[in-house]
């Protein structure tokens, strides 16, 4: 049996204290994987939304997700959904810019980094599911608004906009749709005012 001596006690105390100090004063390093983790969660949302939406026309060769972001993000979404299919078709994720033609997209995702959603929403005509994260997107009548609440992602579906665009959301999806809390109170307030 190892008999502990005074030196070992001092050494143990020293090392534990060293780590204690290090953990309190060490410079904080941003972890790249954290953002990727978030992208993976959002990619899962895009995929799950697509399973509960009916498009008026069947998908041809592949289900095209258009992402208003850098190619690294769209590539990562593609990787996250590598093995998944929608309407029995493989998913293709591409990165799009403001000036590009969006007619081939089944889904348009506008992340929070894009402050102005309107130019994209204007170009996203019929049969394109639009998903966004900014207040601008919400007010610009995007279809599915993804937002953070209590450190968790929630979503709100603009049913009228969806229907107008020729898309149908299934009941399972609609039941999970929630208006953001502050917007909820705003809308209630406006109803009271009326």
């Amino acid at each position, binding site marked *: 049996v190892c008999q502990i001596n005074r030196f070992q006690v001092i050494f143990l105390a020293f090392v*534990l204290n060293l780590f204690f100090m290090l953990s309190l004063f060490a410079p904080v390093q941003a972890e790249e994987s954290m953002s990727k983790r978030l992208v993976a969660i959002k990619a899962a949302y895009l995929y799950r939304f697509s399973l509960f939406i009916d498009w008026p026309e069947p998908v041809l060769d592949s289900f095209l997700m258009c992402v208003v972001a850098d190619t690294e993000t769209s590539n990562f979404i593609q990787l996250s959904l590598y093995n998944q299919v929608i309407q029995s078709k493989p998913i293709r994720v591409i990165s799009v810019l403001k000036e590009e033609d969006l007619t081939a997209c089944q889904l348009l995702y506008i992340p929070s980094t894009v402050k102005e959603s309107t130019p994209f929403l204007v170009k996203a005509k019929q049969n394109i599911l639009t998903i966004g994260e900014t207040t601008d997107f919400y007010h610009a009548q995007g279809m599915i608004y993804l937002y953070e609440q209590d450190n968790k992602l929630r979503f709100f579906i603009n049913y009228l906009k969806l229907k107008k665009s020729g898309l149908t959301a299934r009941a399972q999806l609609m039941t999970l749709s929630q208006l953001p809390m502050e917007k909820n109170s705003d809308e209630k307030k406006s109803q009271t005012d009326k």
Partner: protein
Amino acid sequence: MKKNHKPISKIFFIHLLLVLASNTQAAQESLVCTPELKKAGGVETFALEDLMQIPMFLSASQQGECTREAASIVSTITGEELLNRGARDLVDALELIPGISFGSNMTNMVGMGMRGMQTDEGKLSILLDGIILTEQRFGITGFGGHFPVDQIDRIEIVRGPGSILYGNFAELGVVNIITKKGHQLDGGVIGGSYGRFERGEAGKNTFLTAGKQWDDFEVSLYTKYNESHRSDRFYHDAQGGSFDMVGYNQSESILGNFQFRYKDLNLHFLVDEYSVDSADGFADKMSLPSKEIRNQFSTYAFNLDYQHHLNKTVQLGARFDYSQQTPWKRTNLYHDGRANKVKESVSIDYYTFDLKSTFSLEGGHYLVMGNSFQFQNYQPTVSNYTGEVPLLGDYTLNGEGVYKTKWANVLLALRFDWYTEYGTNLAPRFALTKQFEKFHYKAMYSQAFHAPTGGNYQLNEEYNQTNEFNREVSPLRPETTHTYEIELGYQFQPNLNVTANIFYIEIQDYFLYSFDANNDDFYANSSKLSTWGLEAILSYQHPRWGKIDMNYSLYQAIEDTSQDFKAVDTAGNILEQTANLGLPTHKVTANHTFPITDSISFNHTLIFSGHRFGYSGSELKHYKSVWIYNMYLRYQDVMVEGLEMGLGLYDVFNSQYQYVQLFNGTHPALPGNTREVRFKFSYRF
């Protein structure tokens, strides 16, 4: 920058108080960081309801746990994988893990080997939702019809020592079974299965599980009853006797698991009753025709756990565990008219108090400091032993810190134990890990320390009192284990991962279960047992053809000073220097799940287990390598939503695996099952 020293000193003071007050704390924690993200197929396979429960940003302590998990060789089997495979038992789940094989102990008990070493005698910690199920008397775990596989959320298997975090039994590895919680169940499931061997009943079981969450309240319940037979073949003892195992060597298991959570307070009750009948007996001669032996194991456990987030940086945790075990209660079931008689029984009350504090920062750096006090009251109730076993206590103080740099996450851990009977020990753990884009590496060193149990103590004292040679064996000394591991992994494609590791394990002063010429048993220490090896895993997923997991494992025995685990012939020659008894040096497994439709899947498994050696009496026997092939068809939502049926055919080639004794205890190999067909059903409501 203005530094405010007051809160820091306060935090430090609080921590010191905790440290001075009295950690095997992590024995109750999940091994896996953010378990939601670790499930099969990744987060994209989650239902929307589950997605909505995932935190967007991890707290510093959650990041810390990720790092801690990364600093181990961990395999995870998800509940969905178990259901796809039609796993009958934990054995079906674990035999697909590299480095794990099964053999026998004695009296119809099946035990596990990991990385070329037997895990009995306190070298494997099995936890169910954090409660230790490994019996406290000798540290032995019985497999076969015992542990539940239905409604499991996941099983985490650590190959490698976990003593610093998981205590006395985690010397070679940890198996952590985590059942589904209320929010995952959100209702109930009832089900069962029935299986038949070629010549008799294989087993039957039934289970009920239910759970619900209401805001801050969450409850879950799991119950099961199981009866199974080891085999329908003939057992041959070493003295010319034999019997038909149809109708003999049955095991029975009842398990109840209730959990309640309110905010950060968790309450957990567990009942585990397991009995194993044996007609094969203790050593080389079967117990029939005069009697059978029944070994019963019972655990009644309770645990209360509370976590308090003092602020974003500091988390405090307190936990109390109590378990009452009656392991190895041995009853002779006489066939000659005599009344059945309890021959041996002990009662063990086991108490653990844990306090810990976690300091963590957003960058993932963290420090965990904790202490625990545990003791067991060991009472032989029916025994030949006339003495007393002292109250066995252990005070533990441990610390673990991680500092992250660009090229490595540096982990250093230390555990100090003070045992009432076995002195003190200081065990370190050191790891360098890092994940880059597609590549990750781990380099780890761990020391583990395993103190003798009450059962070890009693057996030697009893031997000294009763042996006919008037011999006196020395008290057993603790084991110390040193493990070195290096793992490399690369993601060749998004759907193709390859990981490989090499390891070296050395146990010093390892426990040796020994017999004298009269077959009276006692424990002794032997100086060194060591193995090295490698394990490689390939995982591939195709959108149409499903998921394939393959692995290869190799171990090479190096040293065994007692030669008790070596294949030694009558002339004293070791037939294969690199093999230990009962465990194949090479093992290959492949598992494939083919999704036929959204609701129908077909799974098949192929296991190659290399040749082995074992004893039958004093005769050394060679067992050829075997190929085991299982297949299972799963049909979900049959006619009505929630109804599920499955049909499995196991050991299709009828290779008839033998559970070879994992040490030289003269017990002949225990026949395993023949080809088995099993029907499973369940209904979700």
